[in-house]
């Protein structure tokens, strides 16, 4: 079936370097540095990335960081909680804007 996203394209990510090698190399250098062990462990960073992947709803990122989380030793329970964190923030972000609604409604209403 025709699909906008192709799972195999994840493996071709580096082809983005063909359009502008310099910017690609800067990006990938930064990217690798971000995910290296630091104040946070690689495992913790992969869990954050998994949550963000769901927040930005990137299928490539979801595939990549599901595998990365498993390969860093996380389990599905932990990964599910990470997704709930993304969900809570996304939901909370909508809900907190309800105050904006309330403020505007209050101003417009008698």
């Amino acid at each position: 079936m025709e699909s906008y996203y192709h799972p195999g394209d994840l493996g071709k990510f580096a082809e983005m370097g063909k359009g502008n090698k310099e910017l690609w190399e800067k990006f990938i250098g930064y990217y690798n540095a971000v995910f290296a062990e630091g104040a946070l462990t690689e495992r913790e960073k992969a869990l954050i990335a998994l949550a963000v992947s769901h927040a930005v709803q990137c299928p490539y990122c979801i595939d990549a960081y599901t595998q990365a989380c498993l390969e860093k030793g996380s389990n599905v329970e932990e990964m599910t909680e990470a997704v709930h964190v993304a969900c809570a923030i996304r939901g909370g972000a909508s809900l907190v804007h309800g105050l904006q609604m309330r403020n505007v409604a209050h101003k417009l209403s008698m």
Partner: protein
Amino acid sequence: MAETKLSLKARRSPLTSEREQIRILSRTDRCSPFEERMRQAGFDPLYATGISVFQMNLGKLCNQTCRHCHVDAAPDRREVMTQETAARCIEALAQTDIPTVDITGGAPELNPQFRWIVAQARALGRQVIDRCNLSVLLLPSQSDLAPFLAGHRVEIIASLPYYRSAQTDAQRGEGIFEKSIAALRLLNQIGYGVEGSGLILNLVHNPVGAFLPPKQKAIEGQFRRELEHRYGIVFNHLYTITNMPISRFLEFLIETGNLESYMERLVNAFNPAAAAGVMCRYTLSVGWDGTLYDCDFNQMLNLPVSDLTPRHISDFNPAALVHRRIVTGNHCYGCTAGAGSSCGGAVT
């Protein structure tokens, strides 16, 4: 993940044929031939650098039927090393100064020759490793096994894929995690894994699925924290071992549609540094029937040592084996991926 209760052989699976497994591995379209990749890395042909580990596979009989087992071991298997072959192994060992005897199976402890082999190897002054599935220690017939191992100062390398029951039971069978924890407590009680006791208890982590293991040091820390916090269990080291795409794990990969992507993962993670340190370069693996192999995985694919060297323990000739050419295939990508994988854990 469905539980497998019978071996491939008992189920008459086509994968019982080693040739069929090799055929499947050679036709995966995301996988260039291993020899070609090794040539690019400067390791073809690959030669042994010596023999420091004498690995003895005592047979396919096991009290568990793990889903990832590369041996296709199970309670229904009957192939076990005989007394005569065990004696040939000890005679061969005595001709050498190979420091380590690594005993595996199946559940090697279920072989009636196991205790004799341990005692003989220890009498020769060799370090002895028992690759233990833990639950075997709880069998009524093995009630004196733990004290026996301690008495002979045998190093235990015990399989525990994860520190939680869901993952462990998914790989090793329902209820195995609980038994493993009970066995680890028993081993701790007699001093195994306890600092200063000299009784070494190492654990093995295999991924519970079609992905690579974590960094060994990182997952060891996780295991140490979780096992101590949850169960008060201590151990010495944790080894990560990559699941080899053969036998029952190959069946899992095919059934779940993961074969191509898993092979691609292994190939993309090829690490020349890991390739340089693969265990076949310093291991000699003896099958239950006395046939010689470069490793336990080649053993399961019926790929004996090069035909330029003696191929049976009764013809043992260390000089001819010590720098032999290693037999390789696409399954070897399992040992060269990422940090590398060996019976002693990560390679790099």
